[in-house]
């Protein structure tokens, strides 16, 4: 199904790859500058074992950072939702935080927080936290006034109203924000690794580059794209799985 709905897009991408391959063969450009897709795939295959080790490290950091980010965004969103003053005080601060160039920050983070997982996680959080937070807050605002009124008229308190109305209303917006953030989670992790790490796709890219292997750099790019798409697919699955209708279909007696 996924394949069918994207068949056209896959064709386009194949066409682009073919063009690229053709260009490399015709122009005779050195693979040091522009390796052909076939070179990249071959290198990917030959170095699969090594790359997958690095990929695992990246997945670990990205998963940790991203889930921390989601957790923080969720907690923050609740705090800001219940105290509009906080929202007015902090949203601009978060906006400003998005204007900081990571290239400047990443080396300093290593200096401040060492070589462990912490600085990398912080960078992933810095990149992914704000879009999730914003989408949660805008999701909360989509809770219909009438639904809240109805709950209040039944004698429900703030917390119950939040849990039973505001939160479910924010579901679609939340997942939309999650998807946007997830697109950048892997890339941010790679970037953070690039600034300093023992292993990970970022380190692999750096090694490949310092050893003058453009083909391996591009192999790592392919892996990064695959990881991101996998993460997006995984989120789709969670979204589908936690959908009230899916849940009901699983449990319903009929």
């Amino acid at each position, binding site marked *: 199904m996924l394949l069918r709905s994207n068949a056209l897009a896959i064709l386009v991408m194949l066409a682009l790859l073919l063009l690229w391959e053709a260009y490399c063969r015709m122009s005779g450009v050195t693979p040091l500058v522009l390796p052909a897709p076939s070179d990249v795939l071959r290198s990917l295959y030959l170095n699969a074992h090594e790359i997958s080790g690095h990929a695992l490290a990246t997945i670990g950091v990205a998963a940790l950072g991203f889930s921390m980010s989601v957790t923080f965004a969720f907690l923050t969103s609740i705090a800001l939702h219940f105290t509009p003053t906080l929202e007015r005080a902090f949203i601009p601060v978060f906006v400003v935080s998005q204007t900081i160039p990571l290239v400047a920050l990443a080396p300093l983070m290593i200096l401040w927080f060492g070589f462990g997982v912490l600085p990398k996680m912080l960078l992933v959080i810095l990149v992914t936290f704000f879009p999730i937070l914003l989408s949660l807050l805008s999701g909360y605002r989509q809770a*219909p006034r*009438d*639904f809240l*009124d*109805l*709950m*209040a*008229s*039944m*004698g*429900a308190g703030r917390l*119950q109203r939040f849990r*039973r*109305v505001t939160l*479910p209303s924010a*579901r679609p917006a939340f997942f939309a924000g999650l998807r946007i953030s997830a697109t950048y989670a892997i890339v941010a992790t790679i970037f953070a690794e690039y600034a300093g790490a023992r292993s990970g796709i970022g380190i692999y890219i750096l090694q490949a580059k310092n050893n003058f292997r453009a083909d391996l750099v591009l192999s790592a790019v392919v892996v990064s794209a695959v990881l991101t798409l996998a993460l997006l697919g995984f989120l789709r699955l969670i979204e589908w799985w936690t959908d*009230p*209708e899916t849940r*009901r279909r699983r449990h*319903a*007696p*009929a």
Partner: protein
Amino acid sequence: MLRLEDLEVRVADTLLLGPISLELRENQVTCLIGPSGCGKTSVIKWMAGILPPEMKASGTLTLDGTPVERHDRFLSYQPQSDALFPWLTIGENVCLGLEVAGMSRGEAWAKAAPLFEPFGLKGTEHLFPRQLSGGMRQRAAFLRTIVQDSRYILLDEPFSALDAVTKIRMQEWLVSRLEADPRGVLMVTHDLHEASRIADRLLVMSSRPGRIMADLPINLPRGQRSETALADLREHLKTLLLEDET
């Protein structure tokens, strides 16, 4: 008897409505009718205890002579939309009020389940709201209101989103439901044809700031309310409403 006395609602020193006094009798349907923006919804929300904080209200609400503390104990409110939560099944939607009041899901379901049949909702228990027609949704919303066993029920334009034919059907259905299980009802509407078909008593509000400008009992039994029998009353209402707003 539920008495509302001297209700006034203001936003930033502008008088939106009042002073208004009215009383609801048990087992009687009162319709509150008036032009758009006169404050019908505000009256009903104040009674349900959910007037938004920017609207300042003064007035008293007494139940059989004693002032009221917790509105949710004896009043059920049904908002202008059907307000069925799309992420819950009809069954779960119907049990909502009972669960909020503290029942377990099992208890709530035991209480609600037998009512699906008489409400014509048999078989919809596990469906989601979007799978129901407008009329069925309205019945489900009403079931959710009724199942809470409140003595008084506040309905805000329950049928305004329905098409004319479904509307007529639902009006007849509501009347028969209330005959089977009578409550004290305050129903807001701006449709004079609807009001005259359903009400035991009609309260007509003036345009903003809304006050009650007529209190008309309708003594004709509902079975006999043909277009012809109601024609004079409607003409009178029309005159009242059209004259007011100039």
